[in-house]
């Protein structure tokens, strides 16, 4: 177990040490919050959907968790290129523990990042209605973070260098974000889009976080939780397996 803790600690230490990374990765979510939040607010209101900022903030929190988690996973590619990965691979510790430690570390960092966005959103006019659901909201955030940290690590265990990075960004991370209900409500979507959105695990994270933070909920907290939980278990198992197969 100490190996899991060691790798968790490494991720968290490195995060708090790199202030530029912390601040830098707040830029994009805040831009989205301001541009979409204020830009589409009146259209949203006129369509009878209520306050757009209230709707959007959980989506932007999910976005920053998604990005931070996936990239902390993909960081393993840097470790492979700059050697440190080997140091962990020859350690007398089952590889799945190495993977799990990093997943937990990356997820912790992503949740902190999501919380920062959450706090900043109050300046954009976001209001919390029900404080008792704050803890469940944090649990949903952590599940989303675990899920995508595990996705990032699984991908990284298969890649040798950063060449495929742009492809992952354009064909995976962006679609996961845009097709998750983070930016728009789920009702009356074209059929194809609806199917895609329902296959996207982030959809249930966004839905759960939004439900807890006082917005409309589409699927219900329990179904959201169950789907996320199963996805997390599956991806951590997959990542652990892929890690045990890494050959250098």
């Amino acid at each position: 177990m100490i190996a899991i803790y060691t790798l968790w600690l490494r991720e968290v230490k490195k995060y708090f040490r790199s202030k530029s990374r912390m601040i830098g990765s707040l830029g994009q979510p805040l831009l989205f919050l301001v541009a979409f939040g204020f830009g589409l607010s009146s259209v949203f209101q006129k369509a009878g959907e209520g306050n757009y900022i209230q709707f959007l903030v959980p989506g932007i929190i999910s976005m920053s968790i998604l990005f931070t988690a996936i990239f902390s996973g993909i960081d393993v590619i840097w470790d492979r290129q700059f050697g440190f990965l080997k140091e962990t691979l020859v350690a007398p510790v089952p590889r799945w523990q190495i993977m799990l430690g990093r997943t937990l570390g990356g997820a912790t960092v992503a949740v902190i990042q999501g919380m920062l966005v959450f706090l900043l959103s109050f300046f954009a006019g976001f209001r919390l209605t029900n404080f008792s659901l704050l803890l469940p909201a944090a649990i949903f955030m952590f599940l989303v973070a675990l899920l995508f940290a595990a996705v990032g690590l699984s991908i990284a265990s298969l890649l040798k260098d950063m060449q495929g990075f742009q492809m992952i960004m354009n064909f995976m991370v962006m679609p996961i974000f845009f097709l998750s209900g983070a930016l728009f409500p789920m009702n009356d979507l074209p059929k194809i889009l609806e199917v895609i959105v329902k296959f996207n695990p982030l959809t249930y994270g966004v839905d759960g976080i939004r439900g807890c933070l006082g917005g409309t909920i589409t699927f219900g907290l329990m179904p959201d939780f169950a789907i996320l939980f199963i996805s997390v278990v599956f991806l951590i198992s997959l990542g652990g397996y892929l890690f045990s197969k890494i050959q250098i």
Partner: protein
Amino acid sequence: MDNIIEVKNLVKKYGDFTAVDGIDFSVERGTVFSFLGPNGAGKTTTIKMLTTLLDPTFGEILINGFNPVKDEDKARKSFGIVFQDQSLDEDLTAYENLDMHGMLYGIKKSERIKRIKNLLNFVELWERKDELVKNFSGGMKRRLEIARGFMHHPKILFLDEPTTGLDPQTRNHIWNYLKKMNKEEGTTIFLTTHYLEEAEKVSNKIAIIDHGKIIAQGKPEELEKQTNTNSLEEAFLALTGEKIREEKADNLAGMRRHHGHR
């Protein structure tokens, strides 16, 4: 004397290419063994198989009595390794690098504190223990890596070109540590290097590999006698020829080291 490393008919194939082609050798406990060969001869591939980073296509390996494929964690506990390319975490301090290594190897906190202090003093980095590794020079990083390799008191220390690119002072320093550890702790040393005079001085036994096959092995003086030469360098050239070898893509990581980091 018993053998701490036993290798029998070891083969590694990548598709059609045979990187290691049926090698046999053994290393006696407590000795210094040098594994020499031109670039791309199969040295690093062999080390990777011995250290559980790569599965062999064929053949048997015993590390301290353990099979690195089946009993990987027991095999891993038996050795320390200083990789050809740097493997420190540059965003952590020297102290943290050693501490995390100790944690991964299951060393208790009180023991870690003691060993880190000893080792950092030993490699003369104690004063700079709280500095980030990215601010260290190449020689300091190497010394730190060697200290890390000794953290868990391994029975075998693999050194893959440990002194490449270092000045004679630092090399001399590093060899003093290594010889001391070999004497005091009885650590078996498995070395690859291109500095043949270094290998000649320190090795009890040498194996020369070329094109994936071991072409000669024995004591340095036996190799010289066998080839009718006066030094290991001459013996090496007599055995492997004068032709310059192309480096394989496999060595990219090593090349990157020379191009600096992110």
